[in-house]
């Protein structure tokens, strides 16, 4: 890494990316994508910038979820875009309480998504029942799908949702989740979840 004296007299590294310096940016991107990195790192890098959550609105936390992508908080700057079709997404944000009927929809949505896929559980209800902890009609989401990140709060503020997406990005890049999952076909850092209850009535003979 060389250095030169800038116009201000302060020594700056030459190959730092500046906004607007298109030549440096292009060269850095080429080095990043083709030069030094393995393909797996590129996959991880690409996955972190295209975490598209499926809009699975199960409960009142959905209001905060919507606010996260509104202009004020603008979670789209992290490369995340709420999308309607589960087959083109790779992230579920469980927005609050999951009732027994909705658990089936949650599991079907999860099964439909292509690998590598991730789950964020949002709100006290998705952690351990929250307000409805003694209700007869709810399930804990971690009994239905494997959860990567939990967001506490009732409801969690939009900043917390954005923070969870950043945290998930860090986790993917540090543990190389996406590329290892694609190469090995398995995720080693957690167990797969088989639903505790027969949520969709598929196990019946």
């Amino acid at each position, binding site marked *: 890494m060389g250095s030169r004296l800038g116009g201000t007299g302060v020594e700056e590294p030459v190959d730092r990316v500046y906004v607007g310096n298109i030549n440096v940016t292009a060269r850095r991107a080429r080095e990043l994508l083709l030069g030094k990195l393995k393909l797996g790192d590129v996959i991880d890098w690409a996955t972190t910038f295209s975490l598209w959550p499926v809009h699975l609105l199960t409960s009142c936390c959905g209001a905060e979820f919507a606010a996260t992508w509104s202009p004020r908080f603008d979670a789209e700057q992290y490369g995340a875009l709420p999308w309607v079709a589960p087959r083109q997404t790779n992230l579920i944000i469980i927005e609050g309480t999951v*009732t*027994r009927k909705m658990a089936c929809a949650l599991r079907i949505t999860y099964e439909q998504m292509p690998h590598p896929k991730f789950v964020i559980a949002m709100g006290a209800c998705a952690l351990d029942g929250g307000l409805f*902890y*003694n*209700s007869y*009609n709810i399930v804990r989401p971690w009994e239905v799908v494997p959860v990567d990140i939990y967001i506490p709060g009732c409801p969690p503020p939009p900043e917390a949702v954005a923070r969870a997406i950043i945290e998930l990005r860090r986790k993917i890049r540090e543990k190389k989740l996406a590329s290892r999952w694609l190469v090995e076909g398995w995720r080693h850092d957690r167990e797969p979840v088989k639903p505790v209850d027969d949520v969709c009535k598929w196990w019946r003979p």
Partner: protein
Amino acid sequence: MNLEEVVELIRGALGDLAKEITVRKGYVEVVVNPGDVVTAATKLKELGFDHVKSVTAVDYPKESRIRVTYHVSSYLRDDLARVIVGLSVDLSRENPVMDSLVGVWRSSEFQEREVYEFFGVVFKGHPDLRPLLLIPELAEKRVLRKDFIVREESIYEGVPHRYQ
């Protein structure tokens, strides 16, 4: 039209069908026999009560009865829109069966399904009597009846002795 006149109107229309009419602030409760409920509902509809606001049920385990109440009101007649009329039926707790009022008020269809799943009240003549919000196994437990026990609040560990 004030409340007394509405009550007189209802009393005149229902005649002997009404076993009991109770008036509270803006609310008139009419109790009829389970056999007469469709006739009474038809007469109320002819009077101008054109929609059902809610269908609900109350469980009285000590008296061994379930009271199903239809709250009806009017959109089209201004004078009747100020009151809510409760059309109530007392059913036995062991075998709660009554005639469905979907034929009279179409808006009661989904709400009768809810009463069916939460209290086990069977509505004869309902076009589509299935559980609405619960899964079928839960609906069999009749979860809103008083003898269904849910886990206690976290402050107590169980019910204190003096409340048992």
